[in-house]
C-alpha cells in the first residue's frame, strides 16, 4: 500500500536518503533498523510530508503524494519524544486529530474513551500530560496517533526513552494491538530487540541506503554483509580465503557451509559456534574478559596474533580471565557474508 521509489533527500551535498525503494503491504508491520544518522527518521518524515524529497516518489495506495501537504496525507506519526501538546489534557491530545477531521463532539468523546481503554489508560482523559510517566505519555501518543484511523501508522523510536522492562512488555502489547486492529505500521528504531519483536519484516539501513530487508529470522540468521553483522552485535567477522569446505583465516582453518564459492570472502562466526576445547587441541587463546549475559556468559578471547574472538559459554563452563584455552569452530554457526 505504501511504496517509495528512489526516494532521495540531501542536506546540503550529503544524501540522507539515497535512492530508497521500499514497499509496505496492507496490514504489514515493517521495522526500519539502523544506527543513528542512517536516515531512518528522515524516511518517516518524507512519508509524512514533513521533509520534501529531492528526488523519487512516495506512493500511498498507488497515489503519488508529491504536493500533498502533511495534514492531508492521512498518515499517523508517533514522534520519538511523543510531542504531546503541553497545554491540553490527555483527552484533548487524543481528540486533536478527530477535531481536525471535524468529527462531531459526541463521537469524539466515545472514540477517546475507547482508545484510552485500548492503550490501558481508562479514565485518564482529564489528566494533565505533564503529570504522566514516560510509559503513560507513550500510550497517550499512541492513542493520539491512532484516533483519526490513519491508513498508515508510523512510529519513530516508539519505545526509545522507556526503561527496559517496560519496553519489553509494551512491544508485545503493541504487536498484539496492531494485529487486532489490522494496522499497517512502518516503525524505525535503533534497537534490534525491539525491531525483531515487533516486525513482520525488518529493513536495515546504512548511510541512507537499504542494506538488507527480510523477516527478523532471515536477517538475524543471514546478515548480508559485515555492516549488518556488526550492527546486530556480531563482532567475530574475519576475512577468509575459501577453498572447498575450509577457509583460511587469521584464526586458522575454519570450516564453511557446503556450497560456498571459492575465493576471498568475509566470514561471520557466531559466538555459539566458538567452542572451547583444551588449549592443546585448537587455536590457542587467553581469556581477556567475561561478561555475564543472563542466559550465557560472553567470553572475550585473545589469540596470539589475531583479532579478538567472542565465545558464548554456559555459565558453569566459563573459564576465568587469564586462563589458557583452545578454540574450535562449528560449521553450522558460520555465515558467509557477501
Amino acid at each position, binding site marked *: 500500500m505504501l511504496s517509495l*521509489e*528512489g526516494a*532521495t533527500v540531501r542536506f546540503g551535498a550529503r544524501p540522507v536518503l539515497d535512492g530508497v525503494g521500499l514497499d509496505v503491504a496492507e496490514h504489514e508491520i515493517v521495522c526500519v533498523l539502523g544506527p543513528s544518522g542512517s536516515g531512518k527518521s528522515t524516511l518517516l*518524515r518524507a512519508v*509524512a*510530508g*514533513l521533509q*520534501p*524529497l*529531492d*528526488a*523519487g*516518489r512516495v506512493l500511498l495506495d498507488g497515489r*503519488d503524494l*508529491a*504536493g500533498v*501537504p*502533511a*495534514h*492531508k*496525507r*492521512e*498518515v*499517523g*506519526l508517533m*514522534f520519538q*519524544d511523543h*510531542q504531546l*501538546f*503541553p*497545554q491540553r489534557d490527555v483527552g484533548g491530545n487524543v481528540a*486533536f*486529530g478527530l477535531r*481536525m*477531521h471535524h468529527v462531531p463532539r459526541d463521537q469524539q468523546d466515545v472514540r477517546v474513551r475507547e482508545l484510552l481503554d485500548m492503550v490501558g489508560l481508562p479514565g485518564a482523559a482529564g489528566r494533565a500530560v505533564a503529570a504522566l510517566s514516560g510509559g503513560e505519555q507513550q500510550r497517550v501518543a499512541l492513542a*493520539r*496517533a491512532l*484516533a*483519526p484511523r490513519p491508513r498508515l501508522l508510523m512510529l519513530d523510536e516508539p519505545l526509545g526513552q522507556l526503561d527496559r522492562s517496560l519496553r519489553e512488555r509494551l512491544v508485545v502489547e503493541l504487536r498484539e494491538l496492531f494485529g487486532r486492529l489490522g494496522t499497517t505500521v512502518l516503525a524505525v528504531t535503533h534497537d534490534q530487540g525491539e525491531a525483531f519483536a515487533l516486525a513482520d519484516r525488518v529493513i536495515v539501513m546504512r548511510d541512507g541506503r537499504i542494506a538488507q530487508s527480510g523477516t527478523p529470522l532471515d536477517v538475524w540468521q543471514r546478515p548480508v554483509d559485515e555492516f549488518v553483522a556488526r550492527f546486530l552485535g556480531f563482532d567475530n567477522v574475519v576475512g577468509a580465503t575459501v577453498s572447498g569446505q575450509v577457509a583460511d583465516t587469521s584464526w586458522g582453518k575454519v570450516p564453511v557451509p557446503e556450497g560456498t564459492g571459492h575465493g576471498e570472502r568475509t566470514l561471520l562466526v557466531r559466538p555459539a559456534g566458538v567452542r572451547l576445547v583444551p588449549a592443546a587441541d585448537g587455536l590457542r587463546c587467553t581469556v581477556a574478559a567475561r561478561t555475564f549475559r543472563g542466559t550465557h556468559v560472553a567470553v572475550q578471547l585473545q589469540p596470539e596474533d589475531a583479532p579478538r574472538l567472542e565465545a558464548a559459554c554456559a555459565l558453569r563452563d566459563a573459564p576465568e580471565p587469564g586462563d589458557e584455552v583452545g578454540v574450535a569452530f562449528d560449521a553450522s554457526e558460520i555465515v558467509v557474508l557477501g
Partner: protein
Amino acid sequence: MDLARTEVVEAAGTTRAAARGKGAALRGALLALPVVFFALFFAYPVAAIVARGLHVDGVWRLGQVGDVLGDSGIRHVLWFTTWQALASTALTLLVALPGAYVFARFDFRGKQILRAVVTVPFVLPTVVVGTAFLALVGRGGLLDEVWGVRLDTTVWAILLAHVFFNYAVVVRTVGGLWAQLDPRQEEAARVLGASRFAAWRQVTLPALAPAVAAAALMVFLFTFTSFGVVQILGGPTFATLEVEIYRQTSEIFDLGTAAVLTIVQFVAVGAVLAVHARTVRRRESALRLVAPETTARRPRGRGQWALLGGVLVSIAVLLVLPLAVLVQRSFATPGGAGLGYYKALTRDDSGIFLVAPIAAIGNSLQYAVAATGIAVVVGSLAAVALTRRDAGRIVRGFDALLMLPLGVSAVTVGFGFLIALDEPPLDLRSSWILVPLAQALVGVPFVVRTMLPVLRAVDARLREAAAVLGASPWRVWREVDLPIVRRALLVAAGFAFAVSLGEFGATVFIARPDNPTLPVAVARLLGRPGDLNYGQAMALSTILMVVCAVALLVLERLRTDRTGEF
C-alpha cells in the same frame, strides 16, 4: 528505466521548489504589513527630514556634515552625550549588579513585591522620572529643604535619574539568568578544589558575562538617546544629542544641523545595536538552566544579611524616595497638604492649554490603546514571520531593523511626521491617528522582543505533530502556537501600552495643542513659572505614575513564567 528515473527526479524537484515558493510567499504576506508600516511611518519621515536638512535649493549640502561636526558647541554635545552614557552605564551596573545577585539567589519576605517595585521606574515616562528627580534634588526640592543641597545644576541629577530608570534592566537581564544558573556547576568547581571566589570567577562569571554585556548595551542605548530626563534636569548646561536635535529643530529652526545630528545618532545607535545583536546571539549558547525557585535560599551569615540590607537601602534611596517625594509634592499645596493641585487640573483657566489639563488623561489613554493595538498587530506579524524556520538572511536582517526605532531620534521621527505626512494621499497632519502611529513605532520593538523568544521556544515538532494529525498551517498556528504565546502577547501588549503612554520625544511635536498627552502636559506645566504650575506638574506626573504602575502590576501577575527578554 533511466528515462523513468529522470521523470521522477524532475517531478520531485518541482514540488520541492513549489513548497519553498509557498513558504516564501507566506512569509512575504506576513511581513508585508510590518514592512509597509516601517517604510511609511519610520523610514519615509526620517528620510524626509534628513533630506530637508541637507538638500537645500536642489543641491545636496554634504559639506554641512563637516561644518556641523567641526562646531565646538556640537562637539561638546557629542562628548557629553557619550561620556554621560558611559558614566550612567557604569554607575547603573555598580548599583544594580548586587541587586541582581540578591534577587537571583536570596529568598526573603516581600521579594515578589519588591521585584515589581524595582520594575516600575522602567515603564515610567521619562518626563515623570525627570519631574521626580526635580522634586528630590531640584530648587525647593527635598535635599534643598533639608540640607540646602541642589543637584539639578550638576550632572549628578542626570546620572542618578538614569540609574533610577535602568536599574530594572540590569536586575531583569542579569538577575533573570543568574537565578537560572545551576548552582551545582559552582559546586562541581568547589569539589574540584576551587575556592568560593575562584568558583564564582571561573564558572558563574563567564556564564553571566554575555548577559551583563547585553544589559550594559541596553542601558548605554537608553541613556545615549535620553531626552525627557535631560530636557528637564539638564537645564541650559547639559544637552544630549537628542536634546540638541530638539533645540535645533524647534527653537533655532536649523534643520541642516538637526539632520546631521540625526545621522550621527543613527550611526552610533546602529553600531551599538549590531554589537548587541551579537552578544544576544552568544547569550543563546547552551547553558545549564534550572527553575529559578530552586536556586534561591535565605541569606546566611552577617555578610549576606549586610549585602541584602545594602541593596534594600539603595533601592529605598534611589528608587522609592524620588517617587515618594513626587507624590508628597503633588499634595503639598501652599495652604498645607491637600488636593489643591489635583483640583486645579480640572480647570482650563491657566492659558497654557485650550482644555483642562485633566483632559490629557483621557487623550493619553485613548492614544495608548490605539498605539498598543497597532504595535501588537505589526509586532506579532513580524515576530511570526521571523520565527519561521526557513527565515533567510534578509529576514533576520529585518529583525535588527525592527530595533532601530528604539535608538533613532524620536524628535526626528515626530518632526518628520509633520513634514512628510502632510500631502495627499498621506495627509495625516490633522488626523488623531498620527500620535498613536508614532507611539506604536516605539512599542513594536518591545512586542517583537517579547514574542520572539517564546515563539522560537515552541518545538517545531509539536507543529509537525499537529500537521500530521490533520491540522492545516493556519490551524497549527491557532492550536499550537497561540495557546503558548497568548500570555506573552498580553505581556507585550502591556509593555507597548506603558511605552506609548510615556512616549514624549515624538509626541511633543505632533500632539495638537487642544489634545495634549500626559507627558506633554507635564512638560508644558514645568516650562511655566509659579508654584501652581509646578504643583500641577507633580500631580499629573503622580497620576501618570499610578497608571503605569498599575499596568505593570497587572503584567507581573500575568507573567508567572519568565517570558521575553525584558
